């Protein structure tokens, strides 16, 4: 069972990133849950979601121990760092998170995703780059199922973007 917390500012696509993973998990025939933050913190400009992908039935959709954490701003790292289980993974956007995690018992991947996304010519790819590393490290879903999920979720007019998004995913995986 993989339990991922994704967190950042509102507007960075945090909730969508979580949805991509959940849809990919469904594509793979696994059980999934996606739980967004919808509380007052959303109004304060931060967003997070809990995504679970499991072979077995999903018990609590609320994550108490995360196997992976993706963060796209500093407050989110501080808030969720301690949720990550020993040996778990923290993936952060180092373009936006200047101070590294304190934890020494987890694997940390710092990727300047936002900067690199601009190099790809599309700022919205930052999340995809980070998800590339998540998929590479945790094998939460297969990249081909991620691609299938994109075709399902995105409206047809955006399908032209998917090959570039898969490039960004690969870039993140290899970073």
């Amino acid at each position, binding site marked *: 069972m993989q339990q991922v917390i994704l967190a950042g500012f509102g507007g960075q696509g945090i909730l969508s990133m979580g*949805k991509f993973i959940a*849809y990919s998990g*469904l594509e793979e025939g696994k059980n*999934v*849950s*996606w*739980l967004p933050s*919808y509380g007052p913190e959303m109004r304060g400009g931060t967003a997070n979601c809990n995504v679970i992908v499991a072979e077995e039935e999903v018990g*609590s959709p*609320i994550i108490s121990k995360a196997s992976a954490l993706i963060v796209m701003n500093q407050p989110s790292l501080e808030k969720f760092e301690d949720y990550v289980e020993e040996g778990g993974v923290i993936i952060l956007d180092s373009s936006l998170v200047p101070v590294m995690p304190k934890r020494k018992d987890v694997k940390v991947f710092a990727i300047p995703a936002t900067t690199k996304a601009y190099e790809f010519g599309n700022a919205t790819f930052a999340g995809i780059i980070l998800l590339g590393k998540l998929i590479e490290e945790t094998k939460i879903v297969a990249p081909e199922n991620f691609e299938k999920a994109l075709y399902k979720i995105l409206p047809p007019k955006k399908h032209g973007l998917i090959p570039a998004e898969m490039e960004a995913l690969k870039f993140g995986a290899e970073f």
Partner: protein
Amino acid sequence: MGEKLLMKGNEVIAEAALRAGCRHYFGYPITPQTEVAHYMAKKMEQIGGVFVQAESEVAAINMVYGAASAGVRAMTSSSSPGISLKQEGISYSAGAELPMVIIDIVRCGPGLGGILPAQCDYFQMVKGGGHGDYNLTVLAPCSVQEMYEVVVGAFNIADRYRTPVVVMGDGYLGQMMEAVEFRDEEPIAKIDKSSWAACGHKMEREHNTITSIYIEADVLEAHNNKLQAKYREIEKNETRVEEFNCEGADVIVTAYGTVARIVKNVIKDAEKEGIKVGLIRPITLWPFPSESYAKYADKVKGFLCVEMSTGQMVEDVRLAVNGRNTVDFYGRTGGNVPSQSAILEEVRKIAAKKK
């Protein structure tokens, strides 16, 4: 069954209602259930149904009263403070024996409270937030798939017994996305309402009257007795519960909705420590599955009731256990959710007791 789709609980509520033949929805927006209204607004237009964003919750419930009086499947949805406003209309609907479905996606109170998830509406739904001797049938799903089953079932129960039915879920159940599989065809109860509905008859028969006013004492008492007889029937036929891992359990934890799923994780944690924990999860909060508790009352070291409230369902658990064992309580409020570790700690205390 068709393809598995990933949908929010709130969207599934609306889709389930449409599949159950509901073509009349009246609501007023409030977090965390507004997606129900969004979905209805979009779909009703496409299928020729009726969607009204009413001027208030009070207006919305009375529109449901009107539509249900005419014999159609009608629904409203809201969240806790909005439900408080609807209570007058709900009492009237129970009195007038109107089949309808009321969705309550619960947020924390009292007052305006907050928008985070809670289970603090148990009293107002199960014990009657409105006046008079009536019971609402209250269904409490714990997953998006079960939300679908329960909403379809709610319309059938409503029609079968001519009674308002509530589907109650904490805010997380409305906001969460999970896989859902819809049936190709719904088992819709085909019930002829022409004997009582005020649906127009071209002067070919006597008028049907929908009312909750009975001025004479004996007439009203007879009406109350009739309602009570109906409630006994619902208790007999519609009580639903999930018993999980209860045989041979040291401790039985009871919870509904999202909290029950947290308890399922606790069961695994406790097992690693050699404590066998069972779960009783009421799916109907009314009628309450009292027998499930009575059955195990002499067998376990104790019961623990966990809620996102300061202790509401626990009263019914204690009535069901009827003094034969201890019933402890653990709850969180304000939008906080009981954590696995905190529940486990409570379980340990009960398991350590000598029997």
